[in-house]
């Protein structure tokens, strides 16, 4: 991890050397400068340390593809990849993500306007893996991270993994089918 700059007037970089401790019990609006790498681009944000990664992604970086639902780690709508692994963006502060490579749903599609869908997104579409779409970015990033780690995933493993996220429309069957077919197609592609 990199150490944060203290230009923004905070003591965020407290280590072994200095201990700028405020004896006052009231914590004001402390601001800190954080640097995030999102979808291959570097962003600098001045923010309160209490803001979660999902709020920074949405409100500061305007990457609103990542959704926010329950804000306590139950629904999975905010799932993003942190160094390739799926995580809940509502269960970490943005400052904790410094130094990590973050990927959001915006990174999946291609083309100038992002209209070229990835194989995983196309599989969700062709298997009717979404209806209202609210949970979809979370499911896509969950599946993207999981398949990268387990390209040989069985259908049973996929069923187990998608239990991490909530979908109130599809009944999950179509989501499992979509992920399974995408995994199978990628395996076939590898063999060729």
């Amino acid at each position, binding site marked *: 991890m990199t150490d944060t700059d203290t230009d923004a007037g*905070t003591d*965020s970089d407290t280590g072994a050397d200095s201990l700028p401790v*405020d004896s006052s019990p009231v914590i004001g609006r402390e601001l800190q400068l954080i640097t995030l790498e999102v979808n291959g681009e570097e962003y600098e944000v001045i923010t309160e*340390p209490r803001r979660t990664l999902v709020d920074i992604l949405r409100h500061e970086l305007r990457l609103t593809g990542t959704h926010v639902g329950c804000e306590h780690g139950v629904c999975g709508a905010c799932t993003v990849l942190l160094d390739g692994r799926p*995580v*809940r963006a*509502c269960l970490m*502060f943005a400052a904790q993500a410094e130094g990590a490579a973050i990927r959001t749903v915006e990174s999946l599609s291609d083309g100038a306007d992002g209209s070229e869908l990835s194989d995983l997104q196309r599989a969700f579409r062709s298997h009717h893996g979404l209806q209202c779409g609210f949970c979809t970015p979370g499911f896509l990033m969950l599946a993207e991270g999981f398949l990268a*780690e387990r390209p040989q995933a069985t259908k049973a493993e996929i069923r187990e993994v998608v239990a*991490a996220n909530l979908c109130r429309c599809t009944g999950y069957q179509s989501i499992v089918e979509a992920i399974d077919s995408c995994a199978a197609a990628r395996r076939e592609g590898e063999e060729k």
Partner: protein
Amino acid sequence: MKPAPFRYHRARDLAGATRLLAELGEDAKVIAGGQSLVAMMNFRLARPQHLIDIAGLRELDHLGTDADGALRVGALTTHHTVETAPPGTLGAEFEVIRAAMGWIGHLPIRTRGTAGGSVAHADATAEWCLLAVALDAAFLVHGPRGRRRIAAGDFFLGPYTTALDPDELLTEIVFPRPAPYAALTEFAARRGDFAIVSAAVDLDVQGASVRGGRVALGGVAPVPVRVPEAEEVLAGGGSFTACAAAAAAAVEPPDDANGSASYRKQLIATLVRRACEEAVSR
């Protein structure tokens, strides 16, 4: 909801972390993976004035057996790291620990949540806490007065309450001896939810017969507990069913919205037997 304001501190090394803890006292909380703490802060059930992020202390992220055959788990080791450890890292001796990881939350929780964080948080149904009690683990902690070792049996004092002093940091979990015939199982309304009851056993097997063992339960008391009455049945050559029945009879589980006391007793009878059967089938 959004958490209350706090100051964020990033520790560079163990000495810096413990010095910060000593300086900031009870207003400070240590954050590692944050999978319990951030949720509690979002609910404002926790409102620490200072967060000390220890994620940069990479020396606390390790997993392996030492020369004495003990398994040493660094506090920052994630559940996912344990779950996906290469064959041989834990071996058959500690397969029980690898297998137990699948019961913890879901994949995106396990990629962030840490062994040390789970133990220090001390939820009564947490898998790491139950494993530690069942397998006689010890916790290494660092503080301004130096290093000390706390036995798992002395560590958990109540719900979310441990023997850690406010200025102490948990650094390592030590599982002292191989547990080739051990298993953990549990029951929750949905996979990934907090367990209503969880059970772990560590059997002493000689040849083809069980000579004794340890039985521990989660979700039946404010902290994970050993059940000597059930262990006596095993030591006396009793059946797994008799052992499980003794466990169910010995404890007074809570009666709450997650399940009545009698329901929990039925779960204990089933889960202890199931854990014993799984332990000998390894």
